[in-house]
């Protein structure tokens, strides 16, 4: 048997549970207490499209180096689900650890001899201590948490404090939970030698960072961004964004005197209605958004085309999931890029934002409303299940004291009264963006008719070719203007000069950062640029021009961002090498390192090195 893995503050623990068995909160406690110990950690839920009884996993990545993307591989498996026993055991790294419920014995054939096996009589303990079936089930989870805390040498105080916080209010629940916790600890301390090779040591590497999921953060960004109307239709993984918005609004948006709401949330009958309400509200001057996922994007196509052509602001959060069709509703992907960028029939181009984590999800959510108002067009915030539904450790959310909303070009009653010329589609500033008026502004001036048909610069119905072309050209010009307004990409230059570059975006960021370090150790240097929006900033094209070969890392099958880049940038496809991960699990550093490493090994680095100064 290989050496048992020995690692401190740098390993992966995975919990295999049954959906609806109450393990979620115990597992969350485990992850949270590690953070409280000052150790960077991230956790990911892998759950089924079902409510109760199917397999679910909880993967915790602990990394003192602060690598919080998925690593791949498992150092310790907490195997609580008989249904998935075999695949769970198989996933453990050689030298790794298996923790399981040994109450009823299993044949040796069920185990591996290259791992350390720790069997705890969890059910036995729990049944001994509790009579009520539900209690037995629930506390079993806390018992294994206790056992783990001892095996991994965790700071018990941190856990106990968290339990205290969690049940604040329902204090009667605190004691029994603490008791269960200690049942587990006592068993481990008594029966096992603690700690094992994997251990946690109090550190000071978390700092000001917070633990939050992207849907929660984006929802708060909507509150800060001044959204007053939300229309949505439930769909995994986006529902929790709309629900979080409601929660935040109840906290921040109640009129202190009247106790009435400074917001309106409507759960629509479907996605056609939710986007329709957003379009109607935005047309009428409110900041409005909807949150959905792939199937919703498909249903919203017609309205998105109307908003593009009639030039109505709209903010759409697409929390991407496994696709096409119903696909893998509880898995992650970046595969809606084309269907959003070119949403609807005819010639259309839409603005997309690509936050890398919950921190940017908050920032871009607020930003999206300014962009939508400024550009008078739909703006998509492209989240995914990994960012949206998992708790990430990120920099604290930030808001500038004297930041003002940019409501864009809205002509006021005063301006109309003063006789300023108003043409709804008249490009007075030469940036392709025209002035609008809101209904009810002025008794006799500025009223116009909004429609999805062709019109002239004064919003009059027209079937004239020249009016149509004039308008479509202006829309292209407006899209060019958008380049300058959207979040700029983030560049990083390799330690050594290199002809190789990499482009990535969204939730790929943490895995990419980790991969770059590993590649560097292998002597492979890559300049990188993280794309944060479509249309592409000129820096992105310059970056491509400055490198011979660029790897474009995406989490979809068809290299969708690459196709946008090739077309908009008139780039020779040969120079953009797609690196594609799309099995529904978050991309890992290991995958990127292997994919890029293998290719560059083929290209034989030697001659390249020579080429460098």
């Amino acid at each position, binding site marked *: 048997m290989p050496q048992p893995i020995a690692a401190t503050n740098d390993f992966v623990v995975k919990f295999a549970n049954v959906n609806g068995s109450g393990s979620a909160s115990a597992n969350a406690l485990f992850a949270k207490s590690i*953070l409280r110990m000052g150790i960077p950690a991230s956790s990911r839920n892998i759950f089924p499209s079902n409510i109760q009884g199917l397999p679910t996993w909880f993967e915790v990545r602990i990394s003192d180096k602060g690598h919080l993307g998925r690593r791949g591989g498992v150092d310790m498996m907490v195997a609580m689900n008989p249904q998935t026993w075999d695949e769970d055991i198989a996933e453990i790294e050689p030298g790794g650890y298996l923790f399981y419920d040994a109450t009823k014995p299993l044949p040796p054939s069920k185990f591996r001899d290259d791992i350390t096996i720790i069997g705890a009589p969890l059910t036995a303990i729990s049944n001994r201590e509790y009579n009520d079936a539900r209690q037995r089930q629930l506390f079993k989870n806390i018992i294994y948490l206790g056992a783990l805390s001892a095996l991994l040498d965790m700071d018990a105080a941190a856990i106990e404090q968290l339990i205290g916080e969690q049940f604040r209010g329902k204090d009667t629940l605190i004691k029994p939970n603490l008791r269960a916790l200690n049942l587990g600890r006592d068993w481990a301390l008594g029966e096992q030698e603690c700690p094992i090779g994997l251990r946690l040591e109090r550190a000071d590497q978390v700092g*000001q*960072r*917070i*633990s*939050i999921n992207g849907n929660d953060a984006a929802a708060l960004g909507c*509150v*800060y961004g*001044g959204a*007053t*109307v939300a*229309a949505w239709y439930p769909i995994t993984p986006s529902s929790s964004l709309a629900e979080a918005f409601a929660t935040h609004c109840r906290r*921040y948006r109640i*009129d202190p005197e*009247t106790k*009435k*709401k*400074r*917001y*309106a949330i*409507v759960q*629509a*009958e*479907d996605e*056609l*209605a*939710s*986007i*329709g*309400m957003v*379009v*109607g*509200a*935005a*047309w*009428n*001057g*409110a900041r*409005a958004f909807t949150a959905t996922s792939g199937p919703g994007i498909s249903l919203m196509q*017609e*309205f998105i085309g109307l908003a593009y052509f009639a030039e109505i602001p709209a903010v759409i959060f697409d929390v991407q999931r496994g696709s096409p069709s119903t696909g893998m509703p509880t898995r992650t992907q970046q595969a809606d890029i084309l269907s959003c960028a070119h949403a609807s029939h005819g010639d259309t181009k839409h603005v997309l934002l690509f936050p890398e984590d919950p921190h940017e999800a908050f920032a871009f959510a607020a930003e999206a409303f300014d962009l939508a108002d400024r550009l008078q067009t739909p703006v998509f915030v492209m989240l995914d299940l990994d960012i949206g539904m998992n708790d990430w450790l990120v920099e*604290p*959310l*930030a*808001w*500038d*004291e004297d930041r*003002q*909303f940019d409501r864009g070009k809205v002509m006021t009653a005063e301006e109309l009264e003063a006789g300023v010329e108003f043409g709804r589609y008249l490009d007075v500033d030469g940036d392709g963006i025209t002035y609008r*008026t*809101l*209904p*009810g502004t002025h*008794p006799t001036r500025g*009223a116009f*008719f*909004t*429609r*999805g*048909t062709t019109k002239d610069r004064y919003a009059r119905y027209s079937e004239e070719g020249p009016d149509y072309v004039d308008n479509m050209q202006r829309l292209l010009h407006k899209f060019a203007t958008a380049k300058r307004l959207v979040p700029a990409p983030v560049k990083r230059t390799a330690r050594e000069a290199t002809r190789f570059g990499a482009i990535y975006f969204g939730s790929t960021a943490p895995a990419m950062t980790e991969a770059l370090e590993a590649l560097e150790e292998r002597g492979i240097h890559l300049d990188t640029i993280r794309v944060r929006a479509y249309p592409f900033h000129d820096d992105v094209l310059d970056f491509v021009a400055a490198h011979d070969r660029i790897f474009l890392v995406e989490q979809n099958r068809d290299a969708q961002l690459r196709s946008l880049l090739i077309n908009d940038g008139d780039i020779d496809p040969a120079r953009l090498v797609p690196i594609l991960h799309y099995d529904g699990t978050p991309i890992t550093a290991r995958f990127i390192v292997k994919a890029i490493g293998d290719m560059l090994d083929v290209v034989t680095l030697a001659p390249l090195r020579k080429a460098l100064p």
Partner: protein
Amino acid sequence: MTYIAKPRLRHPKLPTNALGYTHRDYEGAVSTLCAGCGHDSISAAIIQACFELSLAPHRIAKLSGIGCSSKTPTYFLGKSHGFNSVHGRMPSVLTGANLANRDLIYLGISGDGDSASIGLGQFAHCLRRAVDMVYIVENNGVYGLTKGQFSATADKGSKARRGAVNTDSPIDLVALALQLGASFVGRSFSGDKAQLVPLIKAAIEHRGAAFIDVISPCVAFNNNPESTKSFDYVRAHNEAVNRLDMILERDEITADYAPGTVETVVQHDGSVLRLRKLAVDYDPYDRISALTHLQQRHALGEVVTGLLFVEPDSGDMHDLLDTVDAPLNGLGEAELCPGPAALAKFNASRR
């Protein structure tokens, strides 16, 4: 259509309403519909109603879907913002607009194809939400703009030009509206301005979801006498349950009626509806019996018209959502953005 654009100069002696607006201030562009189209009469009735109610034109928003009927908002209320959205989806756009600014008056104009075929779902759900609006369906039982195919209100067995026969049972939007919870439901006929204008006025004054089904013959594709949506048929089978007089608070009540023949309805804004009963047994406050009466008469081939149901003190979507009184589109940073201090607290709660 008429080629002669109306002279725009204002005649000094044109009668004005309480706000000093003339009838012309409520008109729109020249209609491009077929000469004789029922829809144009409805546009005229809307203009008349808004003029008589002395509404400020710019405080009205007119929204529609796609179709000849949905084109009409271009032909009335030229000083109001309008939104010709997409086919069958006007209700959601109107709902959103209403959420953004509860202070405007919302007219939703649609057709039977727009509302009963592709738009049935949105039609139903916006009524369930008690959106404060006047929802008018200009019902001709046919798709006019696409040249005469059946809509979901077309008579079963009716024949289209190209020989196709309609085999689906027709939808009665009034019956649906009653069932779905609309708080004001009426039916009228584009050819009966005397009935239609007060009905529209009452619907505008009503707070909540007001629906009016207006039979509006399509002279190009569905005006043959067998069609229940033809001028001849409706004239022959029109069964008005009551006649409505809208009396604004400010007007003193003059007309007097024989006792027992009149219902008086006081609306939330103090305006008074007087219903002269035509069907004595008819009770416009009872949803269930209204529905029953409607269906029984329908079975006899009659077209029941009038103010069929009203729930005067019903609230609207904003009451249900408990939103602030000020229009949401008017709130600024101060009311909406919690600011850095609150964010610092929030951050702390996530450590």
